[in-house]
Structure formats: structure tokens, C-alpha cells
């Protein structure tokens, strides 16, 4: 059974056991506009919660994608280098960024669930 959680910086994380997949939310891709480049970390890199996990660049700006929780990068979505538009087309699925092996699953409790994130986005107007 997987569960999905969100950060205030609009990353999502889907957890399955002690590994998780990270991407950016539909709201984030919509605000960024057309994504033109994604810079992904090397497998094996250790990231702290809130540390830079990737960079996403749209026509408007380059933005960091932060690790929702700490862990080790065990996979990166290589498809994004050839087709960065995947982030716009399917942000919650095929447009994922990295897979992490969680170092401290307890950190997940600090993140928002689906309903809380929906409320958070509504509050942004």
C-alpha cells in the first residue's frame, strides 16, 4: 500500500516500504510553465531533508527541487533528459524525478497529506 505526501515547496513523495518516489505537483508544473530542462542527481548521492535533490528549469525560471525527506538517491528518471515535457504532461506519474531510500521514515509525518495539500494550494489563490 503506497501513500503520497506533499511539501510546501510543491514536491510530492510516494512511499512504498523504505523507498519512495519524488516529483513535483501538478500545481507546481502549472506555475512553472513549459519545463525545458531537468538536472538530476547521481545515484548514490545522499540528500538531507530540504536539501537540493534536482533542478527543474522552465522558460520562466530555474527552480530547485528539494528532498521532502532525507535519504540516498537510488534512481533518477533518465527519460526526463530527452523529454522534459513529461513533467508537464504527467507530473504525478511518468514525470517523476528521483527514487530515494529513506534514512528516517519518521520525517514523513511532517509532510501534508493529499487533503491538506489541496487546502494549502487553495490558500495560495
Amino acid at each position, binding site marked *: 500500500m503506497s501513500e503520497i505526501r506533499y511539501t510546501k*515547496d510543491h514536491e510530492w513523495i510516494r512511499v512504498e516500504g523504505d523507498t519512495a518516489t519524488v516529483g513535483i505537483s501538478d500545481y507546481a508544473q502549472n506555475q*512553472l*510553465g*513549459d519545463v*525545458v530542462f531537468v538536472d538530476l542527481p547521481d545515484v548514490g548521492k545522499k540528500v538531507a531533508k530540504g536539501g537540493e535533490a534536482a533542478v527543474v528549469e522552465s522558460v*520562466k*525560471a530555474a*527552480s530547485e527541487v528539494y528532498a521532502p525527506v532525507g535519504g540516498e538517491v537510488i534512481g533518477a528518471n533518465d527519460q526526463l533528459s530527452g523529454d*522534459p515535457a513529461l513533467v508537464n504532461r504527467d507530473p504525478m506519474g511518468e514525470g517523476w524525478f528521483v527514487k530515494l531510500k529513506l534514512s528516517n521514515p519518521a520525517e514523513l509525518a511532517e509532510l501534508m497529506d493529499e487533503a491538506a495539500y489541496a487546502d494549502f494550494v487553495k490558500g495560495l489563490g
Partner: protein
Amino acid sequence: MLNRQGRPTAPGNDNGTAITTFTGNRGLDHEELLSFEQDAPGRCGVDLPAPPKTTERLGGLARRDAIGLPGLSEPQVVRHFVRLSRKNYAIDSGLYPLGSCTMKHNPRLNEKAARLPGLGDLHPMQPVSTVQGALELIDTLAHWLKTLTGMPAVAMSPAAGAHGELCGLMAIRAAHRARGDARKKVLVPESAHGTNPATAAFCGYEVESIPANEEGRVDLDALARALGPDVAAVMLTNPNTCGLFERDVIKVAELTHKAGAYFYCDGANFNAIVGRVRPGDLGIDAMHINLHKTFSTPHGGGGPGSGPVVLSEALASFVPVPYVVHDAKGFQLVEHEGAGGHSFGRLKGFHGQMGMFIRALTYMLSHGADGLRQVAEDAVLNANYVMASLKDVMTPAFEGPCMHEALFDDRFLKDTGVTTLDFAKAMIDEGYHPMTMYFPLVVHGAMLIEPTETESKDAIDTFVGALRHLAERAKAGDKERFAAAPLLAPRRRLDETRAARQPVLRWKPPAPAQAAE
């Protein structure tokens, strides 16, 4: 930080009336081919005598294939570049309200001085004894910069604003290192120029962003909380990119120094305060001055930038080489400090942008101290006139008067279906280079207008009239016209996404036709 400025990225709907012509030209505005596409092998602008018979000694280094330069006649070359220059929009062609860039008129007297044979024909490798006048000019310009800023030292060599930032931060890093203090962090407020965090990161520092308050100024409490023994410097832009004077600048300096950090000020907006505020009096340790903004030297493709950095007493000894000194033998260029020197080293070949030094000093001498003071007054007056003339139809981002640039947000476009980008593109049809848009990031759909002191009241009234007209049409529901803009420019709305995803970075000759079998 996620960019949430509401900028659309898709090209507009091409539903305007595009008139096509047989030639592709638009009236007397020619559709110009690249010089390589005009290539006719063997065509040449000059008639050179055949070279005398020589023996080639290049061996394996001899050229094996064609050099690849296009064959063109002289009139072709002249027309090519004249036509291209007509496509360029420049400060010489009209009002250029690009906020944060200070696109002011470049006086022709500057150009005359820079072309004087005694200055224009110098070479940086000449013996110092033959360029005493040029060194005196650098020394005199340095004196003016130190006097205008109230600072004891200046590094003249940085080649542009961001290069000046780098110089300032390298001096700061050298000063910390000299006392064995390896600080890791630089604090940059959100209202600072975008180059500031880039410079700090390039210097190897970790960058921490300090939020802006409701008034568009640095949040002093947040800054105080972030300061600590690990902070090497605070980088503030003043006046900031919201066009506002950072009123708490002296407190920022005090807090910064109390924490053992240095205070860098981005002086890109010095035009608003030149002759009226001396940064040295505000507790600033280092500040670059864009000669190509405040002191009217050309920029934006018209010439190289130049970004001298003034330094406080604490940083003065770390100034990069070379620098000019004056002693009994005349002016000397110190290229190496030798033992006991603190200079952080060399930042650039030679001594800086000499041509820009000449132009900037000409500007200073022709204006005088009183004239420079009036530059700041008129620049601020013009920006406030723009803001006051538009505030009933557009929405100023912050209450109260501004400094040298007027910042609007996109609230006035709410529910019109017109975005800041559409509005900017429609300005092109009205004959204006758009203002800076979607920057600063702290304001949604930002439009940053800097008219500079160059513009007359008549010119600003016409500009304001055009913007009022556009704002009213947007509100009247004319969104198709905006979505299609520009209709009258040499090119219609460009596809920025495709340009970024599939960039064409160089021209390649078409593949040769396949030989018939």
C-alpha cells in the same frame, strides 16, 4: 523558491492579420539573409594583387579545406549590417524603459573623447612612461568614484557589474581568510539583484535568502535571525529592485558588522542616489558601480560594461592588481605587490576597460558635481511621474513614492485574460521596448519601468499615453489583440519553449545535393 509569477510560456494565437509579400520584406524593412546564405564564392570587397611566389613551409599544419568565409561584395556587406542595425532597438532609437538597467543616453561627447588619438590609439603593452596621461585619467576617475561614494579605495579592473560583485566578495573572502576565519554563508535579500546569489555561489558560499517585508524592503528581523558567526557577508541592493530605498540600510550595516560579517552593496542602482547619498556613510564595505549605467557608457551590445568596486578601509588592502599609484617618478601601475601585500590577485587582463574610463570621466567632467546630483534628482522625478501618471489605470506594487524605477504588478489585468507578457508584447506594436517583466520575483506579474533622466516630459507623456491606452483596452475586453501581439514587429510572438527545448545554436550549410546515380 518556486516561481509563481504567472508568466505564460506558450506562444500566442496567431490570429492577427499577417500580410505576406512576394519578397518576404515588410515594406522597407528587409528580410535579411545571413551573410553565409548570401555567399557567392570568389566575390570580394577588395582587389588584392596576386601574392608573389612563395614556398610553403607549413607542412602538416597547412590548411586542408576551405576557410568557410562567405564571398561578399562591399555593398552587400554594408547593406547587410545596416539592415541588421535597423532591426535593433537601441537607446539611440527610442525610449528604453528596461527597469534595473538604466538605459540612459550615451552622450556623443564621451565618444569624441574616447576617439582622441592620444587615448584611442594606446596599447596596453606600451611602456608605462609613454602612457602617463592614460594612467592619470584612471587615477582621476578613481578619485571621482571615491569622492562620490565616500570610500577610501577602488578597484578599477572589474569588467562589468557581476564581475564587480565577484571582486567585492573575493576581497571579503580574502579579509576573512587573513584572520583565519572560514565563514561559509552569504545572506541575500529577495529584493536584491539576481546576480547577487549567483556571485556568492560562484565564490563557493552557501546562499541564504532573506524575505522581503510587506513594503518591498528587507525584513530586518529575519536578517537579524539569520546573521551569525558563519555569515561572511550580506549583499543588499540599494535602491532595491522594487525601486525602493532600503531605509534600514544603516541598521543592516550595524547588524552585519556586529556579526563579524562584511556588508556588500549592489550599486547597480546608484543612478538614483549619485551626488545625494555617499555609500561610505551608510557603513557599506564594498560596492560596485556600473559605469555603463550611472556614468552613461554604452551597454547592451553597444560596448563592454565596466564595474569598478569601491572598498572600505577594512577591505582596501585586498584590492586586486594591477592598480595605479602616484610617486616621485610619476604614475605607476602596480602589477605585483611582493612580500607583505594583501591583494587577492589578478581579476582581469590589464587594468580594466580603458575606453569606458574615458567615457565615464568625460561624463563626470561635463556634468560636474552639481550636474550629477541633478541626474539623480531627474531620474527619480521621472520615475515618480510615470508612477503617478499610471496609478489610476495600472497597479503600483507598493504604496508611496519610488526611487529611479516604478514597479507595477498585474492586479489591474485580473480577469481580463491579458497577462504581463501579452501587455509587454503589445507595447512593441506601439514602438516601445518592453519594460523589465516578471522581475523582481517578489511581485506577481511584475512590470518594472525605469525611464532614466534622459527622457523629456513630452517623451514620457507619449509613453504614458500608450500604456494608458493599452491598460484601458485590456480592461475593455480586447484580449485577442493582446494574445496576437506583436502584430507589427519583424517577427510575431516567438516560441520560447521550443527555442529552449530545441536550440539552434549555429548555422550549418545545407547538405550538398546528392549526385544523380
